[in-house]
């Protein structure tokens, strides 16, 4: 973009802020421009209103629950809708544990795949793997859930759980009877779902690593792996970290697949082979059945917490990306 053309296009950003709207709306714009400008401005403001509306509605609807149960709601583990006893801890716990399992599994695979795609893969294989990643990202959550119940859960019950219990059964992590639906199943499904996400972002970040650095490292006699480990990864560390954080945000909010395989039991168990519950799942399952105003309000409050966590995580990722200026697209 030449300086001259950018000047024409960016008239608005160059005028002092006070006069900006005037300049755009009257001097430079003609009548139909003004109409179009107003419509597009209105559209933009409407998107802001949507986010504000979500926040407002969530707070407004959860107010009764917040007033009645206060902060204790978040640390109580009792969930008994019939007697109006509500504690969100089992759900928060389930969401955190299943997402943690997912990230533990998905991160190495995601980064490994991204490295393979950017640094090593022959052209033909690259196309196939990129297709696989895209397909994994395109499959809807409910289909993952379907596959999870009927294929993955029995597989874990019959093959994975016995092995884990045989060799690692002394750990509290792998104790208790496994019925297939469990934290581990949910974590695995989530891992498959967020891998494409991590791969996509890590790949984007890796592509920005300057070729000169790579060439210099190779020219000095480093092997490909040494170049990746000591040059490329340190360079892209922050960006990849941001990608993992974004994937965490995805995993926390994932609803259908988790609902279908986590078992939906509001209890806290140290064993990941036991069923659990998650914040999104309890909303999906019980929102329609909520028979009292306070019950509904409690569910919305869980939603509010989930929303807040998702936004904070996203902000954190964006700050990371922002810090790594070259990669941040905006």
């Amino acid at each position, binding site marked *: 973009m030449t300086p001259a053309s950018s000047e024409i296009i960016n008239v608005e950003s160059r005028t002092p802020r006070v006069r900006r709207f005037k300049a755009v709306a009257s001097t430079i714009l003609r009548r139909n421009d003004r109409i179009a400008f107003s419509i597009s401005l209105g559209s933009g403001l409407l*998107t802001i209103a949507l986010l504000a509306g979500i926040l407002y509605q969530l707070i407004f609807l959860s107010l009764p629950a917040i007033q009645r149960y206060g902060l204790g709601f978040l640390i109580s583990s009792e969930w008994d809708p019939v007697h109006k006893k509500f504690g969100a801890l089992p759900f928060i716990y389930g969401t955190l544990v299943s997402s943690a399992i997912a990230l533990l599994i998905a991160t190495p695979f995601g980064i490994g795949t991204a490295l*393979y795609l950017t640094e090593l893969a022959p052209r033909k294989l690259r196309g196939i793997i990129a297709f696989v990643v895209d397909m994994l990202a395109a499959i809807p959550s*409910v289909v993952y859930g379907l596959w999870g119940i009927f294929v993955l859960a029995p597989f874990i019950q019959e093959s994975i759980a016995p092995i884990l219990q045989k060799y690692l059964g002394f750990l509290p992590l792998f104790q208790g009877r496994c019925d297939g639906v469990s934290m581990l199943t949910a974590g695995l499904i989530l891992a498959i779902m967020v891998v494409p996400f991590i791969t996509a972002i890590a790949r984007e970040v890796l592509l920005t690593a300057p070729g000169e650095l790579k060439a210099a490292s190779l020219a000095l006699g480093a092997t490909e792996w040494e170049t990746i480990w000591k040059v490329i990864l340190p360079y892209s560390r922050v960006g990849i970290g941001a990608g993992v954080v974004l994937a965490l945000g995805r995993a926390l909010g994932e609803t259908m697949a988790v609902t279908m395989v986590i078992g939906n039991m509001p209890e806290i168990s140290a064993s990941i082979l036991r069923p659990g519950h998650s914040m999104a799942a309890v909303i999906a399952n019980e929102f329609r059945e909520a028979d009292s105003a306070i019950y509904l309000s409690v569910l919305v409050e869980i939603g509010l917490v989930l929303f807040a966590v998702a936004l904070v995580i996203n902000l954190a990722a964006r700050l990371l990306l922002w810090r790594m200026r070259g990669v941040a697209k905006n």
Partner: protein
Amino acid sequence: MSRKTRIAYGGSAHISRRRLYNAVWLVVMGLCALALIAPLAGILGYLIYKGFSSINIAFFTELPAPVGEPGGGVANAIVGSLMVISMGAIAAIPLGIMTSVYVHEFARGSRLATIIRFVCDMLNATPSIILGIFAYSVVVLSTGQFSAIAGSFALFVMMTPVVVRGTEEILRTVPDSIRAASLALGASRWQTIWKVVLPAARRGITTAACLSLARIGGETAPLLFTALGNDFWNFDPTRATNTLPVQIFKFASSPYPDWHRQAWAAALLLVLGISITNAVARFATRTKTVA
């Protein structure tokens, strides 16, 4: 990295250890990538294996059969899904395009444009179940009933930021020299946008719109307590409506093998629909018009 360099390492123990490390790690990375094929093959394989045999004409023309009765189909869910998705898209696509026109054409670089872009990212990061609660509170609570409109509203909120960011990405590929040329010829800003910029970006915007459709096409969570579900035909947008993803969920959570079979078939159909939409999106930008 050529073979020559490798030979140049020579044969000392230190160097051969480095080469071994190198080989091992390269293989590990390749295996990471190949490992992703396993779940995909597993899912697609099961979809085809379990679903294909249940797809017949009745599947497309009949209502879901009551428990215990064999046969039946998901015709009303297909129609309902198309209705809910298209109503959402009709609102989201123009709004998204106009918003990105503001962000990238009218107010590029301004503070408000940055805020809007940021808000879109936040909307994009919002868990879909939250959008269900939002649509419930805005539409269902105020009209007093579950409806296709409520479902569309949830999908609309979900789709808008995707369209905005997608379109903006495309507008960015339209060179500023074209805009400058149009303005220099005396065209107004809107004429430039409408007759020069948007036509140049047309294919790209089609792609963005298709991708956003594919993104919301399989969404279940926002529809659970908005469009709700319905065992019968419904063409009235103000009434509860069946949709394909919700029907799959219902089939899958039931204890009946016959419903499980249909769940696989419906899932196969859904994945097929989404893949086709994605393919159309790719196809639209295959021949680029924008330099």
